[in-house]
């Protein structure tokens, strides 16, 4: 009797505790997921009632919207070039800072700070830095006798400009790598040194395998993040020049909130989900080949 009463109290407390979240999950997440899926088979312009049109949105996406493919290409460009560069730089800095240098805390702060700059402010800063005539970057290049490109106004250089700007914000990943490096047990390095391993071999056969789960995590998060890139492009280039910085989510945003093609934009969102899902699964599938998990 008393045991039953105890359970009842526990259950009632639990439901009261999760009630807000159950409501939130249903109203703001699961409901919208179902609605979005249904909209993706509809023509819906908000002002007129939705109309069922079968697979037309998907057909249009794959066969009649060249901008969609262009935006997907632009986005994958950022992923394929930007993410590895980001990992390379953040890992290099973490390795340098992990060499027991003096003032590590100070340098860590310097490298970390840019990553907390709000994206809108960061975009404005970089529009000024990348200004072709009087911007900082082209001034620095001119010191070496190089005439800098038009950056954001150039079809070829706008995406690289975004990548460079992204490298300024690698602080978060650097901190993750530093934490990962500090978790590598010292005795592994000692053992490797006793076996005659040089600095490169210690990195290649101790650091890298021990750090591979961290690299894997940063890689996945980086890919998912770049696939959703939007704010910078909206503010700095408005998708131009010649749609060279029209990224996938930007195109989706235009379709939904500029053209009010809610059904089409919903279909695009589901395609994005499939891409994110496929890329994550592919990475998980490939990970046993290079990610090393310590067996306990």
């Amino acid at each position, binding site marked *: 009797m008393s045991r039953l009463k105890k359970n009842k109290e526990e259950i009632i407390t639990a439901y009261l505790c999760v009630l807000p979240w159950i409501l939130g999950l249903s109203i703001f997440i699961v409901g919208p997921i179902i609605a979005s899926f249904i909209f993706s088979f509809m023509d819906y312009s908000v002002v007129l009632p939705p109309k069922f049109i079968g697979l037309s949105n998907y057909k249009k996406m794959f066969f009649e919207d060249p901008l969609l493919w262009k935006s997907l290409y632009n986005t994958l460009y950022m992923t394929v070039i930007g993410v590895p560069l980001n990992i390379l730089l953040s890992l290099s800095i973490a390795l340098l800072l992990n060499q027991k240098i003096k003032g590590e805390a100070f340098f860590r702060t310097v490298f970390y700070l840019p990553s907390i700059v709000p994206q809108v402010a960061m975009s404005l800063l970089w529009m000024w830095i990348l200004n072709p005539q009087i911007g900082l970057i082209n001034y620095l290049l001119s010191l070496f006798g190089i005439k800098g490109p038009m950056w954001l106004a150039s079809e070829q250089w706008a995406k690289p400009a975004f990548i460079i700007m992204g490298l300024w914000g690698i602080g*978060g990943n650097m901190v993750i790598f530093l934490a990962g490096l500090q978790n590598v047990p010292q005795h592994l390095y000692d053992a490797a040194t006793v076996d005659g391993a040089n600095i490169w071999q210690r990195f290649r056969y101790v650091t890298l395998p021990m750090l591979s789960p961290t690299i894997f995590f940063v890689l996945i998060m980086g890919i998912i993040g770049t696939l959703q890139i939007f704010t910078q492009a909206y503010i700095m280039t408005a998708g131009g020049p010649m749609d060279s910085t029209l990224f996938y989510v930007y195109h989706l945003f235009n379709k939904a909130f500029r053209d009010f093609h809610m059904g089409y934009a919903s279909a695009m969102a589901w395609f994005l989900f499939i891409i994110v899902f496929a890329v994550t699964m592919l990475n998980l599938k490939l990970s046993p080949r290079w990610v090393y998990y310590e067996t306990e």
Partner: protein
Amino acid sequence: MNIRKIIPRIVVYILVIAGSIAFIIPFIWTVSTAFKPDDQIFLFPPKWIPEPPTTIHFREVFEFVPFGLLYRNTVILTLLNIAGTLFSCPLAAYAFAKLRWPGRDLIFLITLATMMLPSQVTMIPQFLIFRNLGWLNTMLPLWFPSFFGNAFNIFLLRQFFMTLPKELDDAARIDGCSFFGIFWRINLPLIIPAVTTVTIFTFMGTWNNFIGPLIYVRSYDAMPLSLGLRMFQEAYSAEWGALMAASLMMILPVILVFFFLQKYFVQGISLTGLKG
């Protein structure tokens, strides 16, 4: 000391210092521009130190846009989001971690599954909900949902509750403490660092949020800084001094919070990283 050991050390220091300079220069450039009289901003080659420094651009920001109002809106939004998150997330996390109730595992599984979904999938129906409620052009869509929890925060806090020993709860039960009392008096105080981390995430998320305001807000009355700064840039794209001054004023609180709560920043990031 032999030379073969010293040279690599020197190389490490040179690389670190060169890297730091590269990372810090954009800040210096921004500060320098914000304090420069207009005629010095457009000099080429540029002048690093303004002569004399001027605060005119900071005053211009308030003349060009209702900057005080934007700032106030952002602070209100941030406080509301933090309040909402602290109200909804720790309780739910506690229930998932510590209490037994029918449906717990299923709902937790759904919670985890939705974390994988890009926010663009739910963005359009959410917009339609708020539109039907007549909440467009108000701040409501930007804070109301926070009172109903967030999958990532709940997940993070749950992981922390899980690490607390069950014996503490049992002892409190024997002393006649209610389950809510256990949460409030025993479990919550022990995970304050994690709660701080979640609070910082919420602050950063609200302060940075751009696409939300862009979708929901048109007029200055309900507009936060992020979108306000964008409107400002659209209207005064050549006023680099004022633009940099406004950007600095948006960045400053974030940097201040960082310096006061540095430990929790770093802890938060490493946590999310290592849990993966």
